[in-house]
Structure formats: C-alpha cells, structure tokens
C-alpha cells in the first residue's frame, strides 16, 4: 500500500485515520471511477466547487454524469457527518499539498 502522508494538527490526523479506513479502498487507486487521492488535476475542478459541496456530496452521496456513484459516507453508515468532513479535509489536503 502506498504511504499516505501525515499532516500536522489533530483534525488532519483523525481525518487520515478515517480516510484510510473507509475512503482509501476506492480513492486510493480509483476504484469505481473515484478521483485518485493526490491527483491534483483530477481534484482541482472538484475543489473549485467549494468545501460545502464536497461535504454534501461525501455525506449524502451523489451520482456523476456518467453514472459513477460516490456512496453516502463512503458506504460506512457508522461515520458521523463530522467524521466524513474530516476525511474530506484530509483528501483535499492530499490534492493541494505541493
């Protein structure tokens, strides 16, 4: 498995744990058409929508135009909204980190 960087701050640490547990399965290598974590180009237009949209899409799930599906809370109903947001923050950081 690829090594995913750790960032300073408790929120990003927590976000990384949650992300590794629930989101990496798809966003690690792009399963199901998921944008790959750390792929700056794939993420730029998504991040451009603003964090609120990303949070909403990650919490409620959404369908892309080609029928791709991001499942609500990454398919893990145990996660609270806050936990999903932490995981989104971590993935956004991966996509913007130089």
């Amino acid at each position: 498995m690829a090594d995913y960087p750790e960032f300073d701050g408790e929120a990003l640490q927590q976000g990384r744990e949650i992300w590794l547990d629930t989101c990496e399965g798809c966003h690690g290598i792009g399963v199901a058409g998921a944008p790959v974590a750390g792929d700056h180009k794939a993420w730029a237009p998504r991040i451009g929508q603003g964090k609120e949209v990303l949070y909403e899409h990650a919490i409620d799930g959404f369908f892309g135009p080609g029928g791709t599906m991001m499942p609500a809370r990454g398919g893990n109903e145990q996660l609270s909204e806050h936990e999903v947001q932490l995981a989104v923050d971590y993935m956004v950081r991966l996509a913007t980190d130089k």
Partner: protein
Amino acid sequence: MKHLKKATLAMGLSTALVLPALVLGDVSDEAKFSPKQMTDWLHLVMSSDRTVYTRLIVNRLQNKEKVIKASEHFEDDKALVLPAQMFRFGAEMVGEQTDDFSYSLLSEWPINKQNAPRTEVEKAGLAYIAANKGENYYATEELGGTTYFTAVYADMAVAPACVSCHNDHKDTPRSDFKLGDVMGGVVIRVPL
C-alpha cells in the same frame, strides 16, 4: 507482398464483408499478438461492459431512480439480472460457441461454490490480485495435456450493494467485505 494485396482487397470491400473475409480467409495468421495482449483486450471489453451494466443499469435504475431492483431470483422477482449472473451467462454462451478461449468470474469467497478456484494457477492468481490491489496475474498452466495462458484480473466492490448483498447472503463464506475490496477475479484462459 501477399500481405499488401490482401489488405487492399479487404479495404475495397464493404465493412459488412470485411469481418467474414477475415474469419474465412487465412488472414488470421498474419498479425501476431501475444496471449497477454489478447487477454488484456478481452478483459478490457468485459470489464467495460460490466462497468456500464453496473453504472447505467443497476446504479441508475436501482440506486438512483429506484424503479427496479437487481435480484438473484430475477425471474420470480421480475427484477434485473445481477451483474455476476449477467457475466456468467455471457461466459457460458461463449463456451458453447468456441474453445479458443474461456473465462469466468471466480472468488476465494464464493457465494456460488461453482465459482471457487480449481487449478493451482487460479488459486495463486486470486491470492495475488487480492494482496496486490491494482495488479493483474499471468501464468501458464497445463491442463489435460494442453498448455494454457491464464490471466487473472481483480473484481472490486464498487457499490454498497456489492458489499451488503455478499456480506448478508446465506451462502457467503465471508461477511466482512468493505467498499473497494477485491471480491474476486476474472480468469481468462487461452490455449497456446
């Protein structure tokens, strides 16, 4: 030069005639492809069809519009055929028509015991793709006096329904699948 003439001839025919000409003529022995290229291409077609079925039929009609479900008992339930059944029925039809290649969707944790690996290469291949996500497995094996090139490609849990249905199924030997996990593999075999 035989080469050229045939190509020109084929180009002069309508497209409808080109395919039969390729099959009936001896053109087939002129272009050489490696078995790996063949299985990679076959797999690309299969996995794309499987993805389209999952996205545009199951995701759209079952998960998004909620107008129809996919069910193992599709006849009784008047439902859509499951993605894996769709795949197996296609593989069986191919098996009736040719011995040139064969394929199947297998798993180390099969709901349908028929889908368990049998040969050493199938077992090694499934173990390899599960341990090395994103990679394929290739090997040759001898079965009944014939040598085969065998390729194994991962099949992954792409939607919550894959995980919940398998984890909860009465016949499943494994109930801790997560999204993104390798659930099994497509095995494609060509005789050498």
